[in-house]
């Protein structure tokens, strides 16, 4: 069964179309990376799938459950990491993790040891019992990443995962993503970092002005664009759409 099916998805903000007629199907064990310039509609698409923005049209089906009709059941399969990580200032990282575990009805025995291992792996063990108001952007991002492993979601939605992370943690995060993929999870990642996209994606999508211009793997992308350089392909596809619109 497909983890995610998106049909004719669209969002209009005050007569301005942010996303238009987006179709997509993601299978288990797939890492889908959505690329696009600023304001192309990447975050809006991700937020619609996370249930944070209401689509103007179209359907989102997560593990066979229609998000619009059964939001609570569908959201139980999602893990979401926003581009600006947020933790309540007056909670420590550990308290935040406990809070999320409570919201998802997870017993302490089921996550405490596992979380301790992730804290260590991501290098936040030293800070985890301090107020998050003292955390850097990167540290917050790491704690938010940890909460993904609490409820074992089938579909993981991540907006700009590498922002604020040091090179060592970026490498660890990449390794974790591959592990999740190998466990059969589906990852939907939005990013600007082309090298990261090339390295990690099973499939790429390029969105420009709210329209999904391309989906496929790097080989398919090279075939239609006549280049192996992802940067060149990206610029060509996004510029083409801008020129055509003019």
């Amino acid at each position, binding site marked *: 069964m497909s983890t995610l099916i998106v049909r004719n998805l669209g969002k209009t903000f005050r007569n301005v179309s942010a996303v238009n007629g987006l179709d997509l199907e993601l299978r288990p064990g797939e890492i889908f990376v959505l690329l696009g310039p600023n304001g192309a509609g990447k975050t809006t698409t991700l*937020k619609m799938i*996370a*249930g*944070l*923005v*209401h689509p103007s049209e179209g359907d989102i089906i997560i593990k066979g459950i229609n998000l619009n009709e059964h*939001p*609570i*059941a569908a*959201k*139980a399969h*999602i893990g*979401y990491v*926003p581009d*600006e990580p*947020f*933790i*309540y*200032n*007056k*909670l*420590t990282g*550990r*308290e935040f993790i*406990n*809070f*999320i*575990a*409570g*919201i*998802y*009805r*997870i*017993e*302490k025995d089921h996550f405490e040891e596992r979380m301790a291992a992730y804290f260590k792996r991501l290098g936040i063990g030293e800070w985890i*019992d*301090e*107020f998050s108001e*003292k955390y850097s952007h990167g540290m917050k991002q790491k704690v938010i990443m940890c909460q993904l492993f609490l409820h074992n979601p089938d579909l993981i*939605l991540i907006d700009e995962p590498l922002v604020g992370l040091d090179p060592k943690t970026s490498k660890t995060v990449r390794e974790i993503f591959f592990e999740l993929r190998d466990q059969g999870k589906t990852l939907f990642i939005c990013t600007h970092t082309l090298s990261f996209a090339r390295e990690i994606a099973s499939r790429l999508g390029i969105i420009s002005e709210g329209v999904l211009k391309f989906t496929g793997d790097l080989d398919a992308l090279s075939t239609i664009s006549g280049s192996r350089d992802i940067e060149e392909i990206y610029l060509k596809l996004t510029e083409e759409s801008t020129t055509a619109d003019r």
Partner: protein
Amino acid sequence: MKEFWLLLRSHIKTVITSITTMGAFRFISFVFVIACFLLGSYYLFFRIFTYLLSVEMIGPGLTDRLIEMSFFVFFTMLLFSNVITSFSTFYNDKELDFLFSLPVKPTSVYLVKLIENYLYASWATMILAIPLVIAYGVTTRAPLLYFPFSLLGVLIFPLIPAALASMFIFSLLRLFPRLQARDIILLSLGLIMALTFLYMKITNPGLLKLFETENERELLLFASNLTTIGGSYVPSTWLSNILRGLSTAHMSGFFYSALLFVVSLAATILAYLVAKLLYVQSWLLIGEHVARRRFKRSLLSFHSARPTRTFLMKDVLIFVREPTQWVQLSMFTILLIVYIFSLRRTPMYFTFPLWRTIVSFANFAYISFVIATFGVRFIYPAVSLERAGIWLLGSSPLSFRKIIAMKYLSNLFLAVVIIEALLIFSNVVIRTDNSVFFIMPIIALFVAASLVSINLGFGSRFPHFNEDNPSKIAAGSGGIIAALASITYVGISLIILAAPAYNYLASEYFNRPVNYPVIYSALAVFVFLNILTIGIPLKIASRSLVYADF
């Protein structure tokens, strides 16, 4: 100075943009509420002054004392509110990282922040002081010159506490950069209370003596014979002298205007020089001394796999750890305790059963308004305080309906505890008769349920997810609309309940027959009103979150 004007202009532009983009409904409601408040306060002060000035012999003196006392309370409150807001304005504002990275003089940044702090800490006082000053001028038939001068005095007056607070906080943090917001608030609260007490003890010891009398005239004479409340060195006395002098075209009015202006200017210049010496240094030092407090055990450590319990624990923890919340709740509680004690100290009203009953109805009205204020300050920001974390709740399997239900029930519990405790204690003090004593707490349950719902409803309809200061959230246009709705609800409820209350008084003390149809229909209308005021705002709250785009 060019840099200062440039920074100030960009701040003013931001304010103008936020006003012009707030939407017609919100803007009209905002203007309407402010206008209603100003007119209502003006009318109230006008009636008070008209009555007091008509009292033979002691009227004018008593009026002056009342004004002087009000300004003295304003001054003390302004000092405290400026210290509280100074820390967040001068040190905790994220904008400062950007401003200090610009090639501008730190003193320009200071001046812009001083104005911001002055406005934010003083607007509420000004809104209360302006109708007071105008009402006094109209009642005393003051010459035309009185109005511009006295209003200017009201605008200048809060500059002194703003400048003093910034000097205090710069010196404190330069010496002790490890201090946290909580320590500063507690320290300044203690210091201001101690200094005020000490100052009063030295300048006006008679005022602090407990005065008990059964005789109204004796009490009024005592009040009017007090020489000054704050003493001649306090700006609040100068402001009241401006009002008194200008209303009679006496030269002292101009003298005190000039004095207030010169001292405000001197305080600002002195604060500017202190800022030049200490501001950047202390700001940098605070950044170096990042306090590392560890919390290995807390409410959330006792983990529960029940979302409702977890959510409530989170709210309690955040509330307890946020100094601006609990300090204001403590001040609120202290003021209410003072109120109950003040009822105890004025037993002359409670001699006759009729008066006792009338006072207990007035007390009920007062407590309802108190809970309305509590709702706007503490319940209205509840949804906004989820801040950017709303994404987390929105993408979790916890429905917004459930979140609203949890917030409603936890806040209702708090509101019921406060309203019932206040009612029961005050009615014991007043010695209210039995039937009123038992009926009022039941009615109070409806009042609490509606006020919590109204504030939660508007708080969800007009959320401020980018703001982390609950006072600023409550002071926004949405908060003011919620305040109007709460006050309107209390007003309508009191009008409806006035019919059975009057009927009860008439039958109990004037031997008139009880009109049961009137009592039952009024109570039915009251219950119906409450079904609407509980149900509709809660529906709005859920719908606002369910259909919002985050």
